[in-house]
């Protein structure tokens, strides 16, 4: 009955279930820790240029594709999202708009990985778009987009959670002026 094998088996089984209960409790605790994130993105300038290649030299084959170049500023305090189960924050600025052909469009303009609580207060100006801002129809005529700051909390263990700030007022895209260089 009380052989070495039985004892080792019982210890193993108990420690494994104890570890998984603890992990489950940590994962669920993320939902009850109060947070108060706030953030604001504003677009300071938009310029539309035409070109054949995007920022990373992807070839669009023709020369009349419209790329937008934006300059943004971000004011955000996300430090309350850092609790004991936060491995990192992934924050991203999103432009949202609708076009006659597509009812809902979202494009990431800029993103960043935050690994420390001290870096989670963001006051940045003059942020240029990190990715090519091009629509699926490759035209920006008559489009109004609002921008908002989104975040994704990546946990040490548990659930991926998402959140976002209030959307800004819509910005209009100007007519193309210049060529992508």
């Amino acid at each position: 009955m009380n052989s070495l094998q039985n004892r080792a088996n019982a210890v193993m089984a108990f420690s494994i279930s104890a570890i998984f209960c603890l992990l489950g409790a940590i994962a669920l605790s993320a939902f009850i820790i109060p947070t108060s994130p706030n953030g604001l993105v504003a677009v300071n300038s938009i310029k539309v240029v035409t070109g054949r290649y995007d920022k990373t030299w992807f070839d669009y084959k023709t020369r009349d594709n419209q790329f937008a170049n934006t300059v943004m500023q971000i004011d955000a305090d996300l430090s309350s999202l850092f609790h004991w189960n936060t491995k990192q924050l992934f924050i991203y600025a999103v432009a949202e708009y609708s076009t006659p052909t597509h009812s809902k469009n979202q494009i990431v303009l800029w993103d960043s990985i935050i690994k420390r609580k001290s870096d989670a207060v963001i006051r940045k100006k003059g942020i240029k778009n990190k990715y090519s801002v091009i629509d699926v129809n490759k035209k920006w005529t008559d489009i109004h987009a609002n921008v908002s700051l989104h975040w994704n909390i990546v946990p040490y263990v548990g659930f991926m959670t998402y959140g976002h700030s209030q959307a800004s007022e819509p910005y209009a895209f100007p007519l193309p002026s210049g060529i992508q260089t």
Partner: protein
Amino acid sequence: MNLRQILTNSLNVLMMLFGVFMSYKAWGLYTNCESPLVVVLSESMEPAFARGDILFLSNPKKPIEVGEICVFKIPGRDIPIVHRIIHRHDKEATNSQVLLTKGDNNNVDDRGLYQELYTNKGKMWIEPKDVVGRVQGFLPYLGMFTIFMTDYPLLKYALLGGVGLVVFLYE
């Protein structure tokens, strides 16, 4: 050790294996996902996901949002990719979506990957039908076990041998 004992033991082992398999498939039905558990194999999502981490997937009905991390397959390639959505364009009329992805640790988006095969020439987007699952949960390190098993097949045979021994020796 008689035949009856061996047969009882093998029945127990089989019951356990089938029990695990059935719960896995039931979970797959519940999450609407063919493989609700995947192990991360690449470093393209560092520092969020490292090699050997386990991801829990599901396929909810609601449309895929920008910023979500998806596991998707490019037509003609067997190995699924885990990357983040950076563009989404929805057509409400046909209830269709086109998506662009990028790995957090990569410098460029995935269009180069989409078009790597000659048969995918001109592929600009992936679609929800290419998406195997959307990442909902995360468990670190434990997937290293399966990586070791595929890297060192000897380990796999040792494990199978261990199970075999239990069948023949356990009383």
